[in-house]
């Protein structure tokens, strides 16, 4: 059994906990020697001085730190550090593969208790031997030599991504040696779990004063009022140690909040090559990060810079809209709207004014109207989906400034969506401003739809624009509207769109009838009923659905969120890796998934890790049960 299990995943970053006690232990800090105070450390090395008597015994240990009350539960309190028969990173080039092979051979021959820590020089990560080690219960890799790649964005991104793709998420990676705390967030995002306090030893010995984002000389640095700096003379080591501890808690917290990516985007400006590496992650390796980044979240998504445009969740969002969003069949008027600062958009003043103007278009107007909000960086948000993450949760510093890249991404997605509408639909463009103009230009060039501009000269919320909108709608309305056709309710349209987005194409129609009953009003969760039976809950916070097991059954052949389970009965409140026979590779962490045994949904659950990683794990929890199907006798 592996020592770790992921408690949450965010790209390659995750919180790892000790398997049995579930105490979060990574991302963490390792002390090179037994620390006076254990707070802030996940583990420490215990390396006795060599003597003639202990040369043959492996007495070097890595001791894990747990709260007293949990110590009894843990799997093992320490790892044995076995010999590492190669050299420091600066000569790793001359380590022959033969020597490495010998090391791996002897490593594999150790009894299990001596096989918990494996040392991997960066030059050997492509070796097939690594695969053999990852088949064992080895829990911790010491990755040596990584800092030599810090300026080589191509090699760094290739190496870390391929390593993380290869090994299971319950294997932790420790990068030893002095590393600036300003790099922690980026490295954690890249899949590194442990650092050590050698940076504190190194800097204090050489007279450097650390702050969270930079290094100063000890002679001239910002005043610090921490208790160690107030000592006379100031204790530089303790101060630096405090800084690296705090750098790590900051990451821990952002992982809990699911805002790590925002932190990374801020921190990468400390190192140009990391910014370039991040762009590689988002372009070349986008799929690897996307398939591990939750799309169900409550976190506010602060978009800070250019890097925000291609965040994995945003790319995933655009892809899902492109692949899964289908407008209601009766839609004949496509209304393009600008976004608002306040989310969801309908709660903003501007959208309320617009809505008022729409209503003047005629009774029943909403049954043939499809609203698309055009925005950066999400590109297009159908009104039906304005309440889900990330549409409801993003935040951009300045609205209305479009780069040419954004314009082209947005226009492309918009064009793809427009193809789904009936040929005789009409577009009303109620947007104004430079970027919007360019987007509409591209839409006009590439489509045969008639486009009316209602906000050309003035802002969309000006009286002039609003009355133009009402008038235009009135003109078209009678043409396009027929009162004999029964249209689905606005709620149904919304739920169908969410379901398609969340569970897969075509699932919305199966789940939700044209009219539905609900209980509970915003900000409470909404319970959805169909003929007195509760079929789903709409979570008012994140905007996503939870299904009853029966509803889940009805879409189980269409949905992608399927975990094939090994038993008809689910015991306890978790799904463990050994019970998971196969998980769909498109499952993301936090996803609502359906646990299926021989085509029967036996439970609904919340994914802890991605489907890809469920398939790799051999122990530990992969999903938490939400509802079990009542067994009919």
């Amino acid at each position, binding site marked *: 059994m592996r020592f770790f299990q992921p408690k949450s995943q965010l790209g390659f970053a995750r919180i790892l906990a000790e398997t049995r006690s579930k105490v979060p232990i990574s991302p963490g800090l390792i002390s*090179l*020697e037994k620390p006076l105070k254990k707070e802030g450390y996940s583990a420490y*090395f215990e*390396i006795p*001085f*060599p*003597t*003639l*008597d202990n*040369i043959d015994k492996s007495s070097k240990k890595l001791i894990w730190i747990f709260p007293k009350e949990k110590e009894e539960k843990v799997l093992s309190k320490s790892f044995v550090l076995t010999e590492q*028969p*190669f*050299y*420091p990173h*600066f*000569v790793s*080039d*001359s*380590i*022959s593969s*033969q*020597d490495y092979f010998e090391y791996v051979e002897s490593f594999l021959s150790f009894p299990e208790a001596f096989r918990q820590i494996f040392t991997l020089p960066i030059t050997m990560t492509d070796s097939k031997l690594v695969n053999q080690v990852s088949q064992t219960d080895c829990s911790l890799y010491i990755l040596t030599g990584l800092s030599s790649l810090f300026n080589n964005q191509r090699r760094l991104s290739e190496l870390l991504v391929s390593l993380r793709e290869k090994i299971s998420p319950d294997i932790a990676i420790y990068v*030893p*040696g*002095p590393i600036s705390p300003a790099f922690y967030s980026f490295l954690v995002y890249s899949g590194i779990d442990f650092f*050590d306090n*050698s940076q504190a*030893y*190194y800097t204090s010995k050489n007279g450097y004063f650390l702050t969270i984002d930079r290094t100063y000389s000890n002679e001239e640095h910002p005043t610090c009022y921490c208790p160690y700096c107030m000592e006379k003379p100031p204790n530089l080591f303790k101060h630096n140690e405090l800084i690296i501890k705090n750098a790590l808690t900051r990451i821990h917290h952002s992982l809990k909040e699911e805002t790590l990516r925002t932190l990374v985007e801020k921190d990468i400006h400390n190192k140009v090559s990391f910014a370039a590496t991040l762009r590689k992650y988002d372009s070349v390796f986008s799929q690897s990060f996307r398939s591990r980044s939750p799309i169900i979240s409550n976190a506010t998504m602060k978009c800070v810079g250019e890097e925000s445009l291609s965040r994995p969740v945003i790319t995933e969002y655009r892809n899902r809209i492109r692949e899964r969003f289908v407008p209601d069949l009766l839609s004949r008027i496509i209304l393009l709207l600008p976004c608002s600062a306040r989310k969801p958009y309908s709660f903003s003043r501007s959208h309320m004014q617009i809505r008022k103007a729409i209503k003047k278009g005629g009774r029943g107007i909403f049954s043939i109207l499809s609203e698309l909000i055009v925005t950066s960086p999400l590109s297009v948000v159908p009104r039906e989906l304005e309440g889900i993450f990330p549409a409801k949760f993003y935040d951009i510093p300045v609205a209305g400034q479009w780069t040419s890249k954004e314009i082209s991404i947005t226009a492309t997605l918009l064009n793809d969506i427009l193809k789904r509408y009936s040929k005789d639909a009409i577009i009303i463009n109620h947007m104004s401003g430079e970027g919007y103009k360019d987007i509409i230009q591209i839409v006009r060039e590439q489509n045969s739809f008639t486009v009316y501009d209602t906000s050309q000269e003035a802002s969309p919320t000006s009286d002039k624009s609003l009355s133009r909108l009402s008038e235009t709608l009135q003109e078209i309305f009678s043409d396009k509207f027929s009162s004999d056709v029964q249209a689905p309710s606005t709620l149904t349209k919304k739920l169908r769109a969410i379901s398609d987005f969340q569970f897969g194409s075509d699932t919305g129609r199966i789940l939700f009838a044209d009219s539905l009953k609900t209980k509970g009003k915003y900000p409470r969760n909404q319970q959805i009923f169909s003929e007195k039976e509760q079929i789903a809950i709409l979570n008012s916070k994140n905007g996503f659905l939870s299904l009853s097991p029966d509803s889940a059954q009805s879409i189980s052949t269409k949905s992608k969120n399927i975990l094939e389970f090994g038993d008809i009965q689910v015991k306890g409140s978790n799904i463990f890796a050994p019970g998971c026979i196969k998980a769909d590779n498109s499952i993301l962490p936090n996803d609502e998934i359906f646990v299926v045994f021989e085509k029967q949904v036996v439970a609904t659950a919340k994914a802890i890790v991605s489907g890809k990683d469920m398939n790799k794990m051999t122990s530990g929890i992969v999903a938490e049960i939400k509802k079990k199907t009542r067994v009919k006798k």
Partner: protein
Amino acid sequence: MKINTSYSESIKQIREKNLPSREHSRRIIHWEEKHRIKSEVVKALVFILPTRGCSWALSGSGGCSVCGYLYDNPQKPDFEMIMISIKDILNKKIQQEEEYSIKIFTSGSFLDRNEVPINVQEAILKELAKYHQIREIVLESRPEYINDKILQNIVNNIDISKIEIAIGLESANNKILKNSVNKGFFWEDFEQATERIIKFGAKVKAYLLFKPPFVTEYDSINDIFLSVSKIKKLGIDTVSINAISIHRGTYLSLLFEKNQYRPPWLWSLVYICKEIKAKFPEIRLICDVVAGGTRRGAHNCGECDKAILEQLKEFTLTQDLKALNHNIQCSCKEEWKGYVLHEKIS
């Protein structure tokens, strides 16, 4: 494979770059010092013969990563002059009523015929055999030259029980021999040579290298302990612990200049000697620190170096643990402890 090809290649390149600056002195260097045999201290006469130098260092392998002796050897040795000088010095120095230990060093292997022709070996041994005052003769050689023929040749010319052959084993760990020292032979070769020497009735002394490149202080302490234990099992009772001193023109020197190597601490040497002598009192332990207390040799903080070097000298001469027990206190001792433990990880 007893060598690491790419490593050996880079050592060779450094060697080739530095060889042109080789000196041409053909003078024998010799001096007198105190030396311990069994339970007494005698006079020792040390000769350094200007041969062409170590064949291993001259070979395509580049030689040992730490060794720059070659740069002191002349390109064309003059053996006639060497013989004349040896006879002359012996004649002048050896006194009637004293006992002597003779050390004949070449910065290579005395028993290598390519370095010291067989007739020269014979002539030197014959000359030494003339002096009954000589109790012990120390020769140095790599193991590959120690074959039955060459040992028989010694027997033919001198009482072989007086001979001690010193072999630079450096470490009993083949990985270190290959990837750190580029020694070109393995422990097994040393083992074989030892058996032969003992069979012929001579003695063996092993040199161990403390803190070769890429091996941390911690690992090297461990390695010395392991090596001593293995050597002792072969019946060898004299071990010389040679702390690294950084020779110019070597691979190690480059590492040092790039700040990737710190010479060993004197504290470590004290620790090693104490530990070994306490557990194996029967071993004659020699710890002559070359360039001790300097930047390129084993050193501490600079404050305590001299006192510790004195202790080590006294210990080597007296073989008495008491010599190491005068408690020298220095603030750098804590720093050393931390260093030994941290260097391992970071």
